[in-house]
């Protein structure tokens, strides 16, 4: 059964939250253009956008509780995995706008439309999380990317922001070309764009060794690796993350990555699972390379935004493990990890945003020297976020469990990824080098004499900090409910015809 998107009831059953968000975004766009630019108007539109996002969140929760049975085919997936990812994306968007309102005020960015672009980007991401058709995937990725290209260059007085925006735009367009060419070849080989149909045709025509299909999958893999910033396609990430306004950096590092990965997982699980042996080695090496390169280069960073950029590359490597693992458990480990990672990333960037003085300056790690003596709460919160990113037990809260489930998924994977799990743990040990370095600088070094007093922190930023710390620590102490929710919302690779399950050979490079 599929949804007939021409009938209003079935359309709303499939896409109600997305329609609400897109409609609301268009209305807010008009509201934003109604008055001349000003700080007050920018704040009003931002708060309205947060309201819209919360309403969308409520709709998503209602849709998931109502629990329409997971549909097996069709262009749009209606399943628990989609709703879980939607909630994480909306959470990230709320954090972005909350941070952006105050960041805009300080940097003199008065365009109220910037918040509307965040809404459009999230609408694209939600489409991406639901898409079960290559065409819809492409449109979702483009809606998301186009909005984020502009958001990166939002600060028009900053040359660095403009450079980041242009760099992101050109490389993003390049990646899109790879992705699109790959999609065209996959369509050429199978004659289908819907994931389930692609999987079926591959099985029926036995296209497992078909060069056109494999080249198509390879090109799509390159495009996706660009979008999620996996090594060796990560070169753009540090410059772009450094140049973008800090709230947008958090948005890119956490939310954009979550959305791209959700789609990555769905395409590779549902469409390409039949040719697992064709791509598993490539993704395996991609994961290893990303973990090693990201961690080693992060060690030498002096700028905290660049350090966090490399840390986000590292987490791409960890998340690639869930793609290779290809199991229900891996898909649940992904949603759990994405939530923990989003919370910790937004917390860390909230601290970076509130530590940054107005104007264009380097966010150096040495600026955090002795932060404990002047801003004890903020230093403590930053320590929690960094420990969560590291996956430290207790003090890192939910971050520890996220990594735990990831390793579990790798070991329990049908293909057996023990070596990958070992590499994951070893590279995590390296990551302690740069995460704990910041903690050491904050707590164990004296405040430099010439250091300026950090600016007062706005109420919204404070709220983001408080909510993320409480959620990280709270979910770290009581993770069982969250585990239950994520585990009941996984999805099977190639879910549609268990009878066709391939009996995969064990895979160990």
């Amino acid at each position, binding site marked *: 059964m599929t949804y007939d998107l021409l009938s209003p009831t079935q359309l709303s059953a499939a896409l109600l939250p997305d329609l609400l968000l897109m409609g609301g975004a268009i209305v807010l766009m008009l509201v934003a253009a109604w008055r001349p630019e000003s700080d007050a108007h920018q704040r009003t539109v931002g708060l309205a956008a947060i309201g819209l996002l919360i309403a969308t969140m409520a709709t998503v929760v209602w849709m998931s509780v109502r629990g329409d049975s997971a549909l097996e085919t069709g262009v749009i997936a209606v399943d628990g995995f989609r709703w879980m990812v939607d909630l994480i994306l909306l959470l990230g968007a709320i954090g972005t706008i909350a941070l952006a309102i105050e960041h805009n005020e300080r940097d003199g960015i008065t365009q109220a439309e910037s918040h509307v*672009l965040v809404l459009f*980007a999230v609408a694209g991401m939600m489409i991406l999380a639901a898409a079960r058709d290559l065409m819809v995937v492409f449109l979702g990725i483009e809606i998301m990317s*186009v909005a984020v290209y502009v958001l990166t260059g939002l600060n028009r007085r900053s040359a660095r922001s403009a450079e980041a925006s242009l760099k992101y735009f050109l490389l993003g367009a390049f990646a899109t070309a790879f992705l699109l060419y790959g999609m065209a070849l996959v369509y050429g080989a199978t004659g289908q764009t819907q994931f389930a149909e692609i999987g079926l045709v591959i099985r029926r025509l036995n296209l497992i060794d078909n060069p056109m299909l494999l080249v198509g999958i390879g090109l799509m893999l390159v495009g996706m690796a660009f979008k999620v910033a996996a090594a060796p396609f990560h070169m753009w990430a540090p410059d772009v993350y450094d140049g973008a306004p800090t709230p947008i950096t958090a948005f890119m590092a956490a939310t954009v990555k979550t959305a791209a990965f959700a789609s990555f997982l769905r395409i590779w699980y549902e469409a390409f699972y039949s040719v697992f042996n064709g791509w598993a080695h490539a993704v395996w090496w991609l994961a290893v390379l990303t973990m090693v390169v990201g961690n080693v280069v992060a060690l030498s960073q002096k700028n905290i935004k660049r350090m966090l950029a490399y840390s986000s590359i590292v987490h791409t490597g960890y998340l690639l493990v869930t793609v290779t693992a290809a199991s229900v458990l891996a898909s649940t480990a992904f949603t759990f990890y994405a939530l923990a990672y989003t919370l910790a990333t937004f917390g860390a960037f909230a601290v970076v945003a509130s530590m940054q003085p107005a104007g264009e300056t380097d966010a150096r790690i040495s600026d955090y020297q002795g932060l404990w003596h002047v801003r004890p709460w903020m230093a403590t919160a930053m320590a929690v976020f960094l420990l969560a990113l590291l996956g430290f037990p207790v003090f890192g809260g939910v971050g520890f469990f996220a990594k735990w489930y990831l390793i579990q998924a790798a070991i329990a994977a049908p293909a057996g990824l023990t070596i990958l799990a070992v590499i994951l743990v070893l590279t995590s040990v390296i990551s302690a080098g740069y995460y704990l370095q910041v903690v050491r600088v904050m707590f164990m070094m004296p405040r430099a004499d010439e250091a300026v007093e950090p600016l007062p922190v706005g109420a919204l930023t404070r709220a983001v900090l408080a909510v993320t710390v409480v959620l990280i620590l709270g979910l770290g102490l009581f993770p069982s409910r969250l585990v239950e929710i994520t585990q009941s919302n996984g999805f099977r690779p190639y879910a549609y015809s268990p009878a066709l399950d391939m009996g995969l050979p064990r895979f160990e490079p």
Partner: protein
Amino acid sequence: MGNVFVSLLYGFNFYLFGLIAIASALLFVTRKSPVAAALWLVNVMFCLAALYVMLDAQFIGAIQVLVYAGAIMVVFLFVVMLLNLGRGDADSDMRGSVGRIAAGAVGLALLAEVMVLARSRFPEELTLRAAQGLAPVDVTAGVIGPIAGPLFNEYLLAFELTSILLLTAIVGAVLIGKKRVTDAR
């Protein structure tokens, strides 16, 4: 007798437009002046439109003229004119013989790929599907009807998402391009 004449005419037109297209494309990449290059590109687009019409794809032929030859090339020429780049004395992107040889090699590889693909056999199911997919043109629906039908039924979601994408791009372009209203105070 009539059929022979039609197929002769068809072959003549195909080679005529094909040769003009290839010649224009060669002139397009070898011109130093951007304006001349852009005009040769317009010529290529027109020839392609003619070839589309010969393939019974009149709608695509018309769109080719309207969108590519019309809108996009006019924007190209506008940009060249507004940025005052039309003199053609700027350094060429193609420097040295290495670049030329590499470009030639890539071109030959692509040509070889087309040759190989034209001879290769596709899985039966795919070729059959493609053959069945070409429904006989319904005279009452015209040329545009068969495009409008799927566009507003089967692919409605993709169509609407494209409009959101374009809206996002417009908002973004205006946001980056507009003057700051508050600065006028």
